[in-house]
């Protein structure tokens, strides 16, 4: 049993865990509050939004693709949720599923473009991002949307119902748990890894690669939409470009967590550590009150350093 477990633990994940410890210690040097339970819980809450987005991003990256439509699908999710919330009596019940469905729909369109039309994912999701933006501009007539988040959305993202842990964290646990199960215990998950390694060989082994790819993009879109809904609940409103700060950190988190950007390799708990590293880094940088310029430089330098230490691809052996 132990050997079965150790064969799965990845050096990269261990390094990631070490980074988390370092960051926590570093932060506590600056401020004693850093290691307090209240602060850590708040960090987890903030990490949840990124965590849900990164879950979808990871699945797509495992395929060897990438989803650049995250920023505006997140925004779309938030805006559609608050918009649906204003639909009279059914609003309250419909808002959350509606955000989910909108995200899922955008994701499936991405999937069709990538899997069936064979357009490179980078460019297709980029285009979908522009389309999502275009749709939202039309929807809001260019202004900030006025609808407020429904009480249910607020409940899910801000309240702390179980064990004093923010509900947003439970949402992350739920999403992440399902994703982890999907990847490691189902035939579908095997196909995801296989396609990331060689779509041709997977196809010739009778896997329905196109359907798998489309589904994964659908999942990514749904995750983005869900995150947008939660964000809107957190801020009580949706706002323009609310999804922009989530794309790069999500990709960084996935890669730091040991997933190869080429696809075919990576574990979900690795991604979890990556998400926590990125969140802690961002909050330390804001606590230490470095001006924005310095923060950008440090953010970039730290990510580079972490990647150079253990995120490198093996030297190609012939």
């Amino acid at each position, binding site marked *: 049993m132990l050997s079965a477990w150790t064969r799965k633990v990845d050096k990269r994940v261990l390094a990631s865990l070490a980074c988390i410890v370092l960051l926590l210690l570093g932060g506590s040097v600056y401020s004693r509050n850093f290691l307090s339970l209240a602060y850590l819980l708040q960090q987890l809450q903030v990490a949840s939004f990124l965590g849900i987005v990164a879950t979808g991003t990871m699945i797509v990256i495992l395929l060897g693709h990438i989803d650049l439509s995250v920023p505006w699908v997140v925004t779309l999710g938030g805006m559609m949720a608050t918009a649906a919330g204003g639909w009279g009596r059914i609003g309250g019940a419909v808002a959350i599923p509606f955000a989910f469905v909108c995200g899922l729909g955008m994701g499936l369109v991405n999937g069709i473009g990538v899997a069936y039309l064979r357009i490179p994912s980078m460019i297709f999701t980029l285009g979908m991002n522009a389309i999502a933006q275009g749709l939202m501009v039309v929807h809001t007539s260019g202004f900030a949307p006025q609808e407020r988040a429904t009480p249910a959305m607020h409940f899910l993202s801000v309240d702390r119902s179980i064990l004093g842990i923010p509900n947003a964290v439970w949402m992350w646990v739920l999403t992440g748990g399902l994703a982890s199960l999907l990847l490691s215990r189902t035939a579908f998950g095997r196909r995801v890894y296989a396609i990331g390694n060689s779509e041709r060989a997977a196809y010739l082994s009778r896997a329905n690669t196109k359907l798998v790819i489309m589904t994964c993009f659908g999942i990514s879109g749904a995750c983005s939409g869900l995150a947008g809904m939660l964000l809107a609940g957190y801020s009580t409103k949706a706002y323009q470009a609310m999804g922009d700060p989530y794309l790069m950190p999500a990709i960084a988190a996935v890669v730091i967590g040991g997933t190869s950007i080429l696809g075919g390799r990576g574990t979900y708990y690795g991604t979890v550590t990556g998400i926590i590293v990125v969140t802690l880094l961002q909050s330390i940088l804001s606590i230490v009150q470095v001006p924005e310029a310095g923060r950008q430089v440090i953010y970039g330098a730290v990510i*580079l350093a972490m990647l150079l230490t253990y995120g490198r691809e093996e030297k190609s052996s012939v």
Partner: protein
Amino acid sequence: MIEPSAQPKATTAPSPPRRPDWTYHFAAQRGAWIALLIFAAMFTLFACEHPAGFSHNVINTAANKGALLALVAMAQTFPVLTSGLDLSVGMVFVLTNCVASTLVSGSPWRVAVGVSAVLGTGLACGALNGAVVVWGRLQPIIATLATGSLFYGAALWLRPSPGGTVDDGLAEALTGSLPGGIPCSIVLLAALVFFVWLPYRHSVLGRAAYAVGSSRQAAFMSGLPVARAQFATYVLSGFFSAVGGLLLTGLTLSGEANAMLGGSYNLSSVAAVVVGGTSLFGGSGGAVGSIFGAFVLRTIGDLLFVLDLDPLWQPLFLGVVLLFSVGLSSLRLLRIKNRLDIYR
């Protein structure tokens, strides 16, 4: 045992008649030709609908806007040839804009030094990218995302708020028109193509870059300078982004650390490269196609404006048109007879 000589000579299926040479040359550059055609059609439509028609002013403005994206798109082309990507081009673009707004003013000597500093910044940024990707062995997407952050931070440090100035003479030289109506920015692009791109393409390093994108393993086994070729692509990328930053400074006459601008140029440069016929998988295409691709993208926006489309609908329309133009490449799927060809 069968003697080989006992067999008839033609044992392979009869080969098709040899095609004339020009068909090969054309097929190799097909993407660029298509982009050029699309641009020509769109621009004609635009100029006809524009109230001022084919006037100097209209052409000059369009040329300047297009050249800005074209330069960043050319920059993006180099790493894409090696099947890499540079997601920091937008930030180098912004950073060199800030550097230019600080240094490129004063006496002609100082202006010259300033321009060298701007170009040098681009080269240095490119060298950093190249070093991280080639010797750090990091994947380009994530590596350039991180370095992009670094470059943006530097830009913010230089210009916490918009400001600065640039030498008027230089600005005019970059963004004005030559007698006869030819915009200077077009001349600049042409000069870069003739004196930088074409020699590069026919050099050993350039050929090696195509080789790396085509099959990295084979390129290595053939003894090509894989590391140097890749490094050179990132350095050249930085250089072209810097020229773009210089042109931007000439246009806006100031410097600004604008993250949104950098981000949008980042992504638009990739779109321009694709529309211009260069494959994201590497090994084919070229910078000339990317120039046409950039102009196509820029003209779409102008076209929508001139056709009096409700400005609210423009971003959506842009996205649809972008998807449509890259979707055209899917038409080749209809010709495929062996399903295996679809999968790489």
